[in-house]
């Protein structure tokens, strides 16, 4: 049990405790899985309880 706090701290799932700031922006891709089932804009809060990867790029 003494190891538990260390193991928890080492886990990538537990490493970050502060959530990113929330926002709400439309999904521009009409063929995305998300757009095909919901018109709800993209927001981090909609992805709670899921792991997500966010790619910051240019579309031009």
């Amino acid at each position, binding site marked *: 049990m003494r190891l*538990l706090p260390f193991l928890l701290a080492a886990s990538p799932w537990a490493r970050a405790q502060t959530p*990113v700031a929330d926002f709400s*922006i*439309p999904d521009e891709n009409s*063929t995305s899985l998300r757009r095909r*089932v919901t018109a709800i804009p993209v927001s981090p809060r909609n992805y709670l309880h899921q*792991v997500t990867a966010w*790619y910051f*790029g240019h579309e*031009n």
Partner: protein
Amino acid sequence: MDIIGVNETGSTPYYSGMYAGKPLSWMRDTAATNVETSFGAIYRDVIILNPLNGRIDSYNLSTFSLTDATNRLVMKNKLIAAATPADTDHDGLPDYWETWAYGSLSRNAASVGINGRKTIQHWAHCSPAPAAGMIPGLPVMAVYPSDGSLSVFFTRRRGTALGLTVTPEFSTTLSSWTTTGHGYEEWSVRTLYDGSGGELVEWHALAAVPFPYVRVRATLP
């Protein structure tokens, strides 16, 4: 795991060739929102968030181009590590969820709460407030008015973290249950995108006389 693309603020003209015909979501950052800054990201970063939206890792694709096989492997391993939940007390429940739901790691999958429900039911059906005993994603039967056919709807957690499976079982007598020959088939699966981590599953009756009773079994290895 969902992957979302973010177009840098002011990066125009827009060109949908980046995502057209592909299944990934793509959004255009704005000066007012400035997602890039709020994430602490720079151009061509991949930022990985944990299930509670905490930033856990990043990888810059300008510095580490994915045209390089080694970099692709590093990126792949980062994604796999992020999607693999820690379960330090080996009870079949991710530590993050157990702590979020109950404030400690004191529960296990078979623990029964004051509402008579096992913890695994809350985990499997994406209960929004496990400590309060609520499980809105339990199975319900519905009749289609157009033809009187039956469907069963339930919410299950997306993915197979720690080997979780959520499977409907059907019965005619309530004394024995089966997963085959019941007259239903999985009809649709729709991701909810509602912050629950779940997906709405529909099993539709195709047989003329389908089994009238259903239950959903959540199991861990």
